[in-house]
């Protein structure tokens, strides 16, 4: 028999081979399907009453969800093309969200504004399982950066549509949002200002500092050790430690308080986030510059570039993807870390998290946590794509 005759056969049997990660995903998804899909509560702080899929949705919709889940499970379990896995994963995730909204509308008694429907353990596990399927498929597809950004935009657009359509309004977290809409958006602005502002400041200071460390070997160890020490201070302690010096500055330096500097509030939060950002940015700048091919540097010197021309024209552009990777790390880190700023009155999404913990209202915690996670994830996708596009030619073929 010819080789050509064998290959379609092996391709066909390949279809039935199990996917290792798919087995894990399937187990998690099965557990998710078995656990309660939503929790029903008579008001926002009483313990929930679990409802499985079959009770959470009207019959036809429950059947639809189970069918979609089964198909998604098969796509995860077997070795099918990553594109198929991706599409099935997205279909399941979309169905989960749409049906969660539907379930909330279905379960909420008419004209009852106290009842709360929140996602149950089953929903979260299903979300985890199929998010894993999607990210795995995306990694295997090795899509071009702009395609990944397009997919991100598509997902964000779908979320905006879903939230804007009002079909999600009966879900508990959105009920918390409804009573706090103005506060939510002002805290969102603060959160973004804290995360992006601290990273911008750290870049303005950190990149020149990294260049300085690169140029002058003697300062390298000192600067890096100092920044390493800052990094080891627990975040809450650093927020606290900054209260005294900043309060002193606000009281004793003319104009300081006019600039918004005070012992508690946004200023110490910004300073602490800035301090945490410095080490990754400085060390990535240094590593990036050290990684520039020596031949390119020698050629640049040999052709008569001045030190400045060499730095701006050759060294920094070649180090840029590594520097950008550092910025990506701190941006994602600071979007998460900015949540703690609320502890010292710095604002941000952390306000809802801590209020929610104080009131044992998990829905309110989610109102702060979910946007934070979405923001961090989106920032990671966008910056990864940027890193990839800027590293053209610098990686070995």
């Amino acid at each position, binding site marked *: 028999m010819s080789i050509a005759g064998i290959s379609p056969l092996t391709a066909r049997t390949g279809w039935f081979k199990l996917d290792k990660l798919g087995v894990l995903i399937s187990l998690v998804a099965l557990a998710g399907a078995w656990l309660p899909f939503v929790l029903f509560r008579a008001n926002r702080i009483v313990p929930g009453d679990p409802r499985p899929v079959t009770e959470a949705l009207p019959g036809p919709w429950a059947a639809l969800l189970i069918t979609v889940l089964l198909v998604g499970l098969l796509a995860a379990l077997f070795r099918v093309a990553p594109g198929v896995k991706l599409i099935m994963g997205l279909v399941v995730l979309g169905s989960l969200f749409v049906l969660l909204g539907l379930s909330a509308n279905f379960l909420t008694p008419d004209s009852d504004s106290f009842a709360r429907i929140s996602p149950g353990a089953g929903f979260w596990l299903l979300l985890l399982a199929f998010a894993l399927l999607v990210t795995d498929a995306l990694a295997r597809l090795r899509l071009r950066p702009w395609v990944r950004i397009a997919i991100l935009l598509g997902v964000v657009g779908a979320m905006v549509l879903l939230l804007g359509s009002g079909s999600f309004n009966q879900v508990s977290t959105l009920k918390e949002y409804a009573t706090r809409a103005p506060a939510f958006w002002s805290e969102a602005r603060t959160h973004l200002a804290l995360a992006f502002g601290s990273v911008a400041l750290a870049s303005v200071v950190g990149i020149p500092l990294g260049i300085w460390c690169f140029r002058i070997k003697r300062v390298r160890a000192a600067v890096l050790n100092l920044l390493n020490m800052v990094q080891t201070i627990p975040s809450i302690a650093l927020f606290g430690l900054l209260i005294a010096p900043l309060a002193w500055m606000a009281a004793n330096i003319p104009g300081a308080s006019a600039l918004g500097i005070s012992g508690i509030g946004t200023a110490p939060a910004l300073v602490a986030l800035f301090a945490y950002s410095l080490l990754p940015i400085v060390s990535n700048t240094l590593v990036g510059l050290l990684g520039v*091919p020596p*031949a*390119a540097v*020698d*050629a*640049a*010197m*040999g*052709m*008569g*570039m*001045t030190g400045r*021309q060499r730095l701006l024209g*050759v060294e920094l*552009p*070649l180090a840029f993807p590594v520097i950008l990777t550092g910025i990506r790390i701190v941006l994602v880190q600071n979007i998460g870390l900015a949540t703690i700023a609320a502890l010292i009155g710095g604002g941000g999404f952390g306000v809802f998290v801590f209020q929610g913990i104080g009131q044992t209202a998990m829905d309110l915690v989610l109102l702060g946590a979910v946007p934070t996670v979405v923001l961090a994830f989106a920032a990671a996708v966008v910056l990864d794509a940027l890193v990839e596009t800027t590293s*053209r*030619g*610098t990686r*070995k*073929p």
Partner: protein
Amino acid sequence: MIEIDEITRRYDGEDVVDRVSLTIQPRSICVIVGTSGSGKTTLMRMINKLVEPSSGQIRIDGEDIAGIPAYELRRRIGYVIQGHGLFPHRTVGQNVATVPKLLGWEKRRTEERVDELLQLFQLDPAQFRNRLPHELSGGQQQRVGVARALAAKPNILLMDEPFGALDPVIRAKAQEDLLAIQRRFGTTIVLVTHDMEEAIHLGDTIAVMDGGKLLQSAAPAEIIRNPATPFVAELIGTSERPFRLLSLGRVADHLEPGHAEGEAIDAAASLRDAFAELLWSGRSALPVRRDGEIVGQVTLAALSRLAARPQ
């Protein structure tokens, strides 16, 4: 003309280059040969001030280079290094345009020069101008490296092991290209290599270095016939001497009248190739062809005399 006068470079009390004096004639190729650590690269790098001498002087066309700012001097001297040293983030066109841009040439003039050079190196500008270096083969990268060094029409070209990373076939082609370009532009070339074969093939003058000292500087034939020290003789390779000597001559210069049988050899071939053909075909003479006509013969007896040690 490059005059190197009693130049010394000291690192941590050790003379890496030790009181070397060498004059390089304009429009000639000077090949500096030596083993690694002989100081040959350091000597070359002092010509464009990538290394500052500890003592001594280098003059280019009579002007002491100590008085010229380093970046200004370097823009006047072409520089090619092993492994090409192309800027990986810049296109082929941008790489070639580096020095013209530093010199502030007009955009039009720079673009024309880039296309002219790419054509000269058999790289179709439309096809290669916007490619990135990593998309090119090793031989193409090396050619772009030389094109970049020649962009601002320098009188002097410094080359540090320029063909070291190439495989033998591509290297031979690159060497021929370099000779053609040198003849065309009359560039003064200083080339560093550890390969004596390459030195004999390319050099008008060969400067042999060892332990920081210049042992001998002379024409290839002179170096082969009269090595100044046992080390120079060893570098040439004692068993290689007759063949190296033959490789310097052309069949056209040693034609004899008469008629020989069999396949003819081209008049432009080297005596070494003729000798090899004689031995391989078991003949005592080869007919010589020039422009398709038989113009005479070259004999084994004559070649044997030419390859013998001069008395």
